[in-house]
């Protein structure tokens, strides 16, 4: 059991980031409603990056923890080095602390999503190297015969390194002094980095499904690999849908349009197949984890419809630069990423959860799902209203007034969403802490 304690620590770190992130998200949403709320000392330019950075930190810390938990089981041998993993943990925690303190004090690089000063990235690269060493030395992957989730994890790792380096090309004047190149490459890197974390998450989701259903063939099936390769193609080439209106060569747009939006179909299909085989196997020892997968399934479909719509250049022309993009981003990171991560965490701890914890996690999930629905629809409403108001030639102050009712709905449902997240997070934090004490 002790060998898993490092994995549990990462999951706890993830939950801490999640709870902090939603607190700052709420503060940021209040700043929409109350213009003077902390406007000089701690404005939206502080709260937004802290919220987004911590949300991404939640995703990475949790998926890394889950992978640390799974790899000894997958490989059938102990983790290569517990010491390395502990150094990794310390460095990652320190980096999060440094970046957030920097944001509080106003140190920015002004790059979307990687808004901390560039030197912080060198720490990030170092701890990812430690993670990669531990991963590769434990798994020792033989790709030709490896199941698809190992491919997925290896791809996520490789592309994390590629994209974090690419995201810093702006430090060279050749990239920085040409806004078209700078914006295009920045969003190429960001888009593919999201693809990289999706690879890590989908890998863990597929492994959990295989365990739950007991269907060991799944990870080796041709169809799973076909989907994996389509996902990879998306990761590499679909990022251009972020930059449709940036006047780069039109080919960038065409490539993105063609490739876009197949990735979610892929996962929906995989989950669908899993559900069928789950029904067949009649296995019900993980009912709670199964519910998380089912909710993720719904969000995959909702986001798929939205994503396809806003990837059509004609529609994108109006929706781009509005809260519709926020609906897409948070719909995916909460509805899909967070649900799949929570599904895996539930799978890991389901057998140890007390009845009371199971109950509050179940309630938390229901609360999260329905409040997210209102949250998402409010953002869509704000975005559509903003798009129409701008199209009609309104001044920005008028636009802001018109979207206000939707933003009230957004903040209010955000509060409920946070309640749901707290119910789940605190139940797991309690269970994991007790388990750590036992071990």
């Amino acid at each position, binding site marked *: 059991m002790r060998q898993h304690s490092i994995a549990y620590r990462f999951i706890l770190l993830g939950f801490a980031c999640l709870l902090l992130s939603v607190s700052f998200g709420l503060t940021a949403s209040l700043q929409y409603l109350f213009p003077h709320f902390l406007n000089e000392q701690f404005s939206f330019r502080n709260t937004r990056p802290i919220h987004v950075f911590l949300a991404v930190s939640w995703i990475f810390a949790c998926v890394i923890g889950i992978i640390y938990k799974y790899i000894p089981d997958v490989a059938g041998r102990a983790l290569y080095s517990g010491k390395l993993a502990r150094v990794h943990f310390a460095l990652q925690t320190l980096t999060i602390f440094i970046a957030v303190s920097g944001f509080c004090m106003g140190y920015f690089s002004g790059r979307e999503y990687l*808004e901390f000063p560039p030197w912080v990235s060198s720490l990030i690269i170092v701890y990812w190297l430690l993670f990669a060493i531990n991963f590769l030395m434990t798994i020792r992957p033989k790709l*030709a015969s490896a199941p698809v989730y190992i491919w997925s994890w290896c791809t996520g790792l490789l592309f994390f390194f590629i994209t974090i380096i*690419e995201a810093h090309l702006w430090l060279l004047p050749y990239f920085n*002094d040409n806004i*078209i190149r700078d914006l295009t490459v920045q969003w190429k890197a960001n888009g593919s980095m999201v693809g990289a974390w999706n690879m890590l998450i989908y890998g863990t989701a597929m492994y959990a499904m295989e365990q739950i259903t007991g269907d060991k063939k799944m990870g080796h099936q041709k169809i799973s690999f076909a989907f994996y390769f389509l996902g990879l193609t998306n990761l590499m080439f679909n990022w251009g849908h972020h930059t449709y209106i*940036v006047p*780069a060569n039109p080919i960038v747009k065409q*490539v993105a349009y063609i490739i876009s939006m197949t990735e979610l179909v892929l996962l929906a299909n995989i989950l669908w197949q899993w559900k069928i085989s789950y029904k067949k196997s009649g296995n019900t020892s993980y009912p709670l984890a199964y519910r998380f997968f089912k909710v993720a399934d719904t969000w995959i479909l909702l986001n798929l419809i939205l994503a396809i719509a806003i990837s059509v250049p004609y529609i994108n022309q109006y929706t781009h*630069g509005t809260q519709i993009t926020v609906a897409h981003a948070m719909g995916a990171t909460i509805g899909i990423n967070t649900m799949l991560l929570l599904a895996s965490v539930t799978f890991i701890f389901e057998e140890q959860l007390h009845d009371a914890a199971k109950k509050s996690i179940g309630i938390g999930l229901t609360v999260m799902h329905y409040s997210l629905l209102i949250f998402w629809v409010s953002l869509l409403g704000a975005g559509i209203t903003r798009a129409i108001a701008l199209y009609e030639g309104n001044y920005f102050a008028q636009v802001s007034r018109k979207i206000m009712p939707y933003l009230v709905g957004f903040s209010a449902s955000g509060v409920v969403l946070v309640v749901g997240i707290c119910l789940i997070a605190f139940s797991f934090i309690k269970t994991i802490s007790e388990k750590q004490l036992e071990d």
Partner: protein
Amino acid sequence: MKKIAVIISLLSFYAGYSSWVYTYGTSCSIAMTEEAKQGKLLWQINNCQSCHQLYGLGGYMGPDLTLVTTTKRGGEKYTRGMLLNGGARMPNFHFTGGEADAIIAYLSYVGNTAITITK
């Protein structure tokens, strides 16, 4: 073995496409002046993109600024006023006149890339 072949082909395409994107795919005929470069730095260290978008990219609390200095509705004078005084939600950054000029030079450069290319 087939899988290895597929992954190698994909990675090669990716490398080729990336190189093209880094060069011909994103060439731009308008050069950034030294003053505009200064303005870009100010834009970044003050994290303007957390509230504003350029080409629709950034945070959404404030308006898109791609064309703010180059269209009738905005213009340089209006932009300077906003930079020196702040607004209802827009913080006052207490910029000096020179800093405001640099940011305006940068925003004008961005606006020109949009106007010339989309025409």
